[in-house]
């Protein structure tokens, strides 16, 4: 049984999705989705435990031997990704019940859970697979389901946001597909490990370089790398809260993982970093994202959009870590994948609670919210500290390692950009705090009225986690460093 955990990890969620369609009852669908997510988390944790103890797990799908069959390859990096995705899912599910009821029409709720499960399956599939084409398929499963979930938002702008995301996402996926095709032309294989051994021999060909370009742009669109981020703000701002929490915490992270996988495993044997200008380009784009998106965030009046722009900036941190091509930098990126997932998940959950009670996340609606929703706003402030990078939060840990990596590399400008960007976070977080705490509540709404416990508890679990892993970061950092070192170890 335990041997088949890798398959179950993806298949369970995939099979449960149609079950939700058949059940139709919102509560039943919610129960199925929750149970499946929790089982998936257990599977992911056990896989991580096994990888930690015995090393890489190889699982040939249907016993078709690689490189002909599809093979699942699980090392520290993607085992960690599986845990991140399922962990966030497990916390989001209890939160989703009340939030979804408030934000999606009753007769569509079961569809939401169906789509959520498909999305989960897609993200887990991206993380677990060792086959570049299989990755494309899972990428599309997760993308298509996320377009649907975004379009379920109350605001009609959710529809156009979903449509624009669909167009850009499809272009990105197609670019990725072209890249895969070109690699296949040169190597005749789709297996990542196999590609990694064959690619160096043909690395000089123009085809391979063009393939790399297509892969970079394609995945760059998916992970919202500046300036390919245009789909993100509206999609996050107008999607239902539960969707925003889940997508913001996992969707782009998995895309970053795929990016790392292509660059460091598939092209691991090719010296694309030392020879080319790719690291410089990535670093410049990351820096622009960190400064530009933070600057835009300062001027937002919709707090959900504000956080969406902050996400683009945070993705800049991750790409910056990748572009350094050092173990410390990459470990910083990997640990930030986790850290940002929990803190941004928590912040978007706070938005969900406010939408639930106030019905709007416009900044001017936040007046006196510190008194009206003290528990939620306290969570927002605590999460905001993490975004700024105050010590004892996870944001501090990520920043510490990224700055350290930049110092080791002598990238002074990068150091400055990281620090300036975190100071800009002070400004946009503080704008919200000031309105919520230092302006009196509008008349007639002064009484305390909090979101239900089923939403507050998940919120505080994520916020609590962002302090727990900020106070004792040794565990996450051990995993991140092991993952980064394994990525530099070349092919699997």
């Amino acid at each position, binding site marked *: 049984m335990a041997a088949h955990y890798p398959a179950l990890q993806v298949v369970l969620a995939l099979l449960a999705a149609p079950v939700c369609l058949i059940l139709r009852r919102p509560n039943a669908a919610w129960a199925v989705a929750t149970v499946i997510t929790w089982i998936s988390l257990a599977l992911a944790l056990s896989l991580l435990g096994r990888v930690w103890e015995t090393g890489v797990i190889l699982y040939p799908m249907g016993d078709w031997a690689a490189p002909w069959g599809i093979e699942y390859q699980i090392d520290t990096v993607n085992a960690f990704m599986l845990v991140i995705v399922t962990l966030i899912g497990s916390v989001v599910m209890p939160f989703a019940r009340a939030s979804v009821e408030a934000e999606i029409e009753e007769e569509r709720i079961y569809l939401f859970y169906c789509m959520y499960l498909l999305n989960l399956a897609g993200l887990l599939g991206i993380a677990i697979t060792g086959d570049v084409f299989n990755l494309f398929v899972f990428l599309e499963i997760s993308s298509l389901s996320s377009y649907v979930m975004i379009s379920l938002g109350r605001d009609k702008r959710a529809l156009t946001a979903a449509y624009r995301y669909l167009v850009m996402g499809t272009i990105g996926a197609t670019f990725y597909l072209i890249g895969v095709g070109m690699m296949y032309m040169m190597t005749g294989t789709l297996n990542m490990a196999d590609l990694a051994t064959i690619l160096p021999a043909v690395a000089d060909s123009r085809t391979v370089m063009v393939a790399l370009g297509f892969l970079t742009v394609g995945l760059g669109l998916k992970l919202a790398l500046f300036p390919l981020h245009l789909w993100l703000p509206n999609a996050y701002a107008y999607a239902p809260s539960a969707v925003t929490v889940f997508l913001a915490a996992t969707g782009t992270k998995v895309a970053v993982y795929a990016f790392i996988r292509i660059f460091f495993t598939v092209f691991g044997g090719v010296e694309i970093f030392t020879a080319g200008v790719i690291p410089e380009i990535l670093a410049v784009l990351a820096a622009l994202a960190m400064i530009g998106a933070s600057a835009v965030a300062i001027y937002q009046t919709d707090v959900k959009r504000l956080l969406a722009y902050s996400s683009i900036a945070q993705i800049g941190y991750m790409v910056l870590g990748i572009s350094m091509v050092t173990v410390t930098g990459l470990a910083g990126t990997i640990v930030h994948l986790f850290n940002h997932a929990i803190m941004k998940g928590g912040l978007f959950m706070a938005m969900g609670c406010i939408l639930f009670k106030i019905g709007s996340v416009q900044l001017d609606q936040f007046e006196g919210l510190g008194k009206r929703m003290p528990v939620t706003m306290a969570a927002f402030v605590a999460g905001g*500290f993490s975004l*700024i*990078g*105050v*010590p*004892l939060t996870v944001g501090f*840990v990520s*920043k*510490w390692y990224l*700055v*350290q990596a930049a*110092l*080791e590399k002598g990238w002074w400008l990068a*150091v400055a950009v990281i*620090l*300036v960007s*975190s*100071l800009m976070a*002070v400004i946009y977080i*503080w704008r919200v705090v*000031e309105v919520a*705490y*230092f302006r009196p509540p509008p008349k007639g709404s002064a009484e305390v009225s909090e979101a239900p416990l089923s939403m507050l508890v998940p919120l505080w679990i994520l916020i609590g986690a962002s302090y727990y892993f900020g*106070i*004792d*970061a*040794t565990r996450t*950092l*051990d995993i991140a*460093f092991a993952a980064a070192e394994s990525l530099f170890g070349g092919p699997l």
Partner: protein
Amino acid sequence: MTVELAIILAVAVPFAGAVLIPLARATPNLRETVTLVCAALLFYLVSVIYPTVAAGGVPEVYLFEMLPGLSVFFLVEPLGMIFAGVASFLWIATSVYSIGYMRGHNEENQTRFYACFAIALGAAMGIAFAGNMLTLFIFYEVLTLSTFPLVAHAGTEDAKRAGRVYLGVLLGTSLGFQLLAIIWTWTLAGTLDFTDGGILAGKADGLTAGILLALYTFGIGKAALMPFHRWLPSAMVAPTPVSALLHAVAVVKAGVFTVVKVVVYIFGIDFLFDIGVSEWLQYMAAATILIASLVAMTQDNLKARLAYSTISQLSYIILGAMLVTDLGVIGSGMHIAMHAFGKITLFFCAGAFMIAAHKTEISQMRGIGRAMPFTTLAFFIGSLSVIGLPPMGGLWSKWYLALGTLEAGKLWLLGVLMVSSLLNVAYLLPIPFRGFFSSPEENPPLKSSHDHDREHDHTHDHDRPNGIKEAPVACLIAIGVTSAGCLVLFFYPDPVYELMRMIVAP
């Protein structure tokens, strides 16, 4: 009780108080009792630790490992002992004072005020006992964030603007420069522990060490070295107890304390002396001393004048540290204690003038000594101590600082200290003198006090020049205790001196 337990409790008690205070918000008397009990308990705990440190011990408490190879732990050395002792003793005085002040002034949100105050004290204890730079930085940021609600306490536009300046400068310098310096030190030395003789010797060349020292000194915004001093005058919109304990003692002393710690335990005095990079920071400190004193003379608002005086006095401490000589460092450490007692007395008096006579501007304070003789006398005592005249404790720290400049062979710095003392005389002493010897009728007509709108003036209601009208008794007790402290420290400066001597000659 073991010393280790006392250390942990000393940091934990104020935080526990911050939890209990909101729970007791329904009954203000109980709430204030919590504050007083916490303050007394804290001072008791610190006094439990003292004998061990005075006997040369360095008790250490390990807390947890935060990053791989980098832990959070406490280690009490003499300098931290001084800071903790001063802060915890003055918290008692301030708590007594606050009760009189906050009630006399009918402040709102008093629960938030007392809770944040307690957190700030807990953070100050954490800074005092920090065993490495990471621990210190954590509590440093806690202190910044917990004092923000105190500065913006009033919630008016002015208070909010001041709060933004406060937070902007303090977070900007600490996240922008100090954190960078810390991470850089970590990559160079592989440790952040406070170690006798420093950790950077041999790990950094002269240029790197120079840049690092600048990053540290300016990154510690709480030390208010110009040009990063703007937050301190801004913070004066806060209620007076905050200005008194936090912005004359806990917060600003946490800043200069950190500077001294960095110079002594991160760089090491000998290492800094050898590479000689601290010289231009002496210039910066000297410039701050003189400029801030000159600006203080132009301020008519009493709290603003005191704030600039604090900026100037803080740079004495930085200057002493940057001299990197034994006597200079001793002077620095002693000045942390001496200035604390003097300046808190002055702030207490300023607050008393405000609640009893509703006067905030110096030009209105002619003849105030007739209505408030006790407060004005205390102001006189505090002024003498800050200036550094006998028979006040302030004499000793200036004495050692002066000796330090001679030891370093910098005669011109001695000149700076002298000129500054004269300036101190010029901006402080006229206030009590006019209070006693001028008559109130000479007061110019009231003009609306700029940017201190909540300190509203109702002079006409209470102006009874011939009757004695002092501040509430609670305030007077606190003023009496701190001004007596200034005197006591003149006759018994030994504990402070001995502790500092242990640092430079272990």
